[in-house]
C-alpha cells in the first residue's frame, strides 16, 4: 500500500498555525491556490480542492455594524481555533470571527449585515461534516450550538419544540426524563438537530421510520436575507421543502418541531456473515417484511460482517424469532468464530488478517455490551453505545467517509465495488449499511439530496470508512479514494450523503445541469449576495 507523507503539516501546532494564517487572500470571482495541498481531484475537471479564503474586504465596517447593534463577535485564536476543521480534519480554515447563536432575531441581524457587506457566513452545528462543509474559509462562523434549549415538550401530542442548535443527545437527555424519545437521529452524540435536518440523517431505524429529517413537523427559519419565517407542509411549504435536506443553502433552521415516541430500551441481536452480499440480502429481506424495528450492517473490512437487528417490544422480538430468524443465513458469535478459525487454518498466509480480526473483536465487541449501558439484557441508549464506540475505535484526527446512497436493487453491486476500492486503498476499513424508507409525501424534500432521483420504496446507504490508525496519508490519496467510490455512484445511478464541500464537483454529474441550475437560480433569489454557506454546494 502506498502512503504519502505530508512534511511539516502536522509537525506542531505552531507550524500549523503559521501555515493557516498565511493563506493568501483571493479576489472574489477568481480561483486561488489551494492553501492546504495541490489540487487532488483526479479525473474531475475542478480547479480547487478547498475553497479560496475570503479576502476580508469590508470586514471592519461589517464588524462595526454588528457591534453597534450590540451583537457579540469574537476574534482571535482562542475564539476561532476550535473551528479550525470539521470531523473530517482534512479541510482546514479559520473564520475572521465567530458569532455564537443566541436567538433568531440576532441571526436575522447578522444575515442582514452580511448581505449588505457581502460577508460570507458559514453555519456550524456539531461540526460533523467531513468535507469541510462546516469549515469557514474566512468570514463569519455562526455556531448554532449556542441555541440549545428545549422549548416545549407536548407529551400528549408526542411533539417537541426545540432550538435547532441542540445536540440530539442533549435533546434525548431531556426527553428521557419524561420517558420519551425522538424518532431517529444519527448514531453520533454530537450531531445537531438543525444540521441533521439540513442533510437527512440516518439511524438504524431509518428503514422503518425514514431519514431523521422526516420527523420534522415545522421549522423556524432565518432566510439568507434575514427574515424569520415559520414553515411546514402547510405554511410556506416551498421554503420547508428547500430547507429540509437543503444543505443550508436556503436558510438557517433556528427552531424545529419534531415528532416523538415513547422511549423503549432495545433488545439487540447480532448475526455474523463472511459475505457482504448475503448479509445485505438478509438486511433487505428483513426491511421489506418489516421484520425488525432496527437493522443495519457494520463490518470489519469484508471479513466479519455484522447484521444487527433490534426490537422495541417483546412482541416484535417474538414475531421475529418465530417468523424470520431462521431465514437469516448469519451465525451467532461462537458459530462464526469457529467458521473463521476453520477458514484461516486453511489459509495460513492470511495470518495477519486473522490477527487483526481477533484484535478488533477484543477491542470493539465489549463496547457494545458495557454493563453500564445495559439493563436486563437491553441496550438503554443506542446512540451512547454506538457513538462512544465509533469515536473510540474509528475516530481520529482525519476521517474520510465517502458514501453511496443507492436504490435497493443496485445496492449489493455498489457495496461490493466500493469494498474493492477500500481494499485497494487501505489496509483496514469498516462499512456501515442501513436502509432508508422513503416517504412519498416528502418527495419534494428529496430533490437534489442524498435520495437518488427516481428511487422508490427504500434507499440504501453505505459508508466506506478507512481506519486511519495513526497513519499519515496525503490528501491526494484520500481524494482519489473518495473519487473512486463516488464514480461507482455515478455509474450505477446513485447519490451521496456527503456531496458538498470538497465533493461538490460531483453535484452536476449526479443531478444534471438542469436541476442544478434551477436550484442555483432559487439560491440566487433567496441569497442575493451568495453569503450563506457559499462553498458547500454552489
Amino acid at each position: 500500500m502506498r502512503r504519502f507523507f505530508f512534511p511539516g503539516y502536522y509537525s506542531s501546532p505552531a507550524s500549523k498555525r503559521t501555515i493557516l494564517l498565511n493563506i493568501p487572500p483571493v479576489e472574489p470571482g477568481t480561483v486561488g491556490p489551494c492553501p492546504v495541498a495541490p489540487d487532488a481531484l483526479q479525473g474531475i475537471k475542478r480547479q480547487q480542492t478547498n475553497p479560496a479564503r475570503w479576502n476580508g474586504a469590508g470586514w471592519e465596517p461589517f464588524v462595526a455594524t454588528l457591534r453597534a447593534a450590540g451583537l457579540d463577535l469574537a476574534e482571535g485564536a482562542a475564539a476561532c481555533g476550535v473551528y479550525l476543521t470539521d470531523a473530517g480534519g482534512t479541510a482546514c480554515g479559520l473564520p475572521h470571527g465567530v458569532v455564537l447563536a443566541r436567538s433568531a432575531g440576532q441571526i436575522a441581524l447578522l444575515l442582514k449585515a452580511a448581505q449588505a457587506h457581502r460577508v460570507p457566513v458559514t453555519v456550524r452545528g456539531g461540526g460533523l461534516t467531513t468535507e469541510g462543509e462546516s469549515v469557514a474559509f474566512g468570514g463569519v462562523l455562526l455556531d448554532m450550538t449556542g441555541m440549545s434549549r428545549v422549548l416545549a415538550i407536548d407529551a400528549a401530542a408526542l411533539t417537541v419544540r426545540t432550538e435547532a442548535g441542540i445536540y440530539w443527545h442533549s435533546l434525548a437527555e431531556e426527553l428521557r426524563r419524561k420517558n420519551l424519545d425522538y424518532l431517529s437521529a444519527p448514531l453520533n452524540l454530537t450531531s445537531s438537530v438543525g444540521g441533521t435536518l439540513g442533510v437527512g440523517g440516518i439511524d438504524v431505524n431509518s428503514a422503518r421510520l425514514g431519514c431523521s429529517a422526516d420527523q420534522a413537523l415545522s421549522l423556524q427559519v432565518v432566510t439568507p436575507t434575514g427574515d424569520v419565517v415559520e414553515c411546514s407542509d402547510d405554511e410556506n411549504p416551498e421554503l420547508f421543502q428547500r430547507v429540509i435536506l437543503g444543505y443550508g443553502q436556503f436558510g438557517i433552521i433556528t427552531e424545529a418541531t419534531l415528532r416523538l415516541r415513547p422511549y423503549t430500551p432495545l433488545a439487540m441481536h447480532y448475526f455474523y456473515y463472511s459475505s457482504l452480499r448475503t448479509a445485505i440480502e438478509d438486511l433487505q429481506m428483513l426491511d421489506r417484511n418489516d421484520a425488525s424495528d432496527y437493522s443495519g450492517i457494520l463490518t470489519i473490512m469484508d471479513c466479519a460482517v455484522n447484521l444487527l437487528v433490534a426490537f422495541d417490544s417483546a412482541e416484535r422480538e417474538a414475531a421475529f424469532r418465530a417468523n424470520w430468524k431462521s431465514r437469516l443465513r448469519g451465525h451467532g458469535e461462537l458459530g462464526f468464530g469457529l467458521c473463521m478459525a476453520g477458514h484461516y487454518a486453511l489459509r495460513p498466509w492470511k495470518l495477519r488478517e486473522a490477527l487483526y480480526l481477533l484484535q478488533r473483536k477484543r477491542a470493539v465487541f465489549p463496547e457494545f455490551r458495557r454493563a453500564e449501558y445495559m439493563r436486563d439484557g437491553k441496550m438503554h441508549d443506542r446512540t451512547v453505545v454506538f457513538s462512544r464506540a465509533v469515536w473510540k475505535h474509528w475516530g481520529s484526527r482525519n476521517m474520510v467517509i465517502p458514501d453511496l446512497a443507492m436504490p435497493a436493487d443496485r445496492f449489493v453491486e455498489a457495496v461490493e465495488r466500493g469494498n474493492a476500492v477500500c481494499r485497494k486503498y487501505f489496509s483496514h476499513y469498516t462499512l456501515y449499511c442501513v436502509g432508508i424508507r422513503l416517504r412519498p409525501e416528502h418527495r419534494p424534500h428529496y430533490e437534489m439530496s442524498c435520495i437518488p432521483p427516481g428511487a422508490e420504496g427504500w434507499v440504501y446507504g453505505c459508508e466506506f470508512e478507512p481506519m486511519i490508525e495513526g497513519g499519515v496519508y496525503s490528501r491526494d490519496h484520500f481524494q482519489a479514494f473518495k473519487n473512486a467510490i463516488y464514480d461507482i455512484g455515478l455509474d450505477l445511478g446513485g447519490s451521496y450523503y456527503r456531496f458538498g464541500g470538497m465533493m461538490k464537483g460531483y453535484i452536476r454529474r449526479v443531478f444534471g445541469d438542469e436541476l442544478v441550475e434551477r436550484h442555483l437560480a432559487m439560491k440566487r433569489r433567496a441569497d442575493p449576495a451568495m453569503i450563506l454557506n457559499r462553498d458547500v454546494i454552489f
Partner: protein
Amino acid sequence: MPAFLAKVPAAPRDYSACSGCSLCLLVCPMWRSSHDPVFTPEGLAKALQCGATASELAAPIAACSLCGACDPVCPERIDLSGMIMDLRRRLANALPSDSPRPALLDELHARLQQGAPATAPVASRSVPVLLPGPVLRSDPALMAQVQALLGIAVFDDDGDDIALAIEVGVEIPQQRLHAFLDSLRGHSIVAADGLLLRQLRRWLPGSQRMGLGPALSTRAAVRSNLAPSDLYVIEPRAFHGDYERMVGYYDRLQRETGCSLSLDLQRIAIPASSSGLEHRLGLVPKRDVLRGVADDDVQARWLLQGRTPARIVVESLADRAAFGRVCDLPVVYLAELGEDPEMMKKFRHAFG
C-alpha cells in the same frame, strides 16, 4: 500473549490528540451554563492546537470546576482535567511575583512552606485513615458521626493545603508533599476531596483509596436507609477519577437500594454545582458571585428537571447549599442517614 492482545491501559495523551468529537462538551458544566464551545475542554484543546496561550484562555481555565466529567468520555484518552490543571499552573507561574494576589493564596503559600502540621501518631500503618477536608472538619458533630460510621481514625494532616494547591495551580514544595505522602504510606485512605483522591491514586499507586461517599454508602446503617424515592447525588470528582470501578459500584448500589442516581445517559455524574477557580479563591466581584450562584443553579435545576424525588441525598456537603437554593425538598448528607433513629423513623414514615 502477544502484546496487542494484552489489556494494558494506555497512557493518557495530551491536547494535541484532540480530534474534536465534542463528547467532553456534552458533560461539561461550563458548557451547560455558557453554551460557548470556548468554555469546554475541547475548546481549550483546539485553541491550544492553534497556538493560543494560557493567558488568552484564562477565563475558561478559571471557570472549570475540575469535576472531571470530561476525562472518562474522551475517546482519545486525553487527560483533560490534567490539561486544565497544567494550564492553571502555567498561569500561576506566569504571574509576576509582585502582582497582587488573593489573601487565600498568600495563606496557602505560607502553609505549604511551613510544612506538615504536628500529626498525632496513628497506631498502626495498616489502620484506615480519614482525610476529612476543611468543610467536614468545620462541623465536629458531623465529623464524629462520619468517624463513628466508618470506625476509622481522622488524620490530622488531611492535606487540604495540598488539595487547594492542586486546584489553584500552585507548586507544592517537594518537602511538604513527601512528608504528606510518607505519613500516608501503608494506610487505607478515605478522602472527602475527590481531587486529592485522584492525585493520591497517582502518587501512591499501590495504596487502597476510597472516596468518602462510597465509603459511607457501604455502611449498612446508611445503605438501609436509602429509598427508591431518593435522588442520590454522587460527588463527581472521586467518581470520574476512578470511573471504571465507580460506575460498577454505583450500579450495584442502585440495584440494591432502588434509589435514582445523579447520572446522565452516558453514566457520567452530573455535578450539582459548577463553581470555578475564582469562587474558590474568593476573587469574584459581587455581581459575578451572583452569576456564579446562577451557574450553580443551572446544574442543580438540571439534575432535578423531570425528576420527582421525595428526598435528595448528597455525598458532598457543598452540594447541600446548591439544592437548598433551587428546591424545597429535604436534602440530607449521606452520613446523616445513619445518624438518628428517630429521624430515620420519620423518613421512613414520610417516604415509605
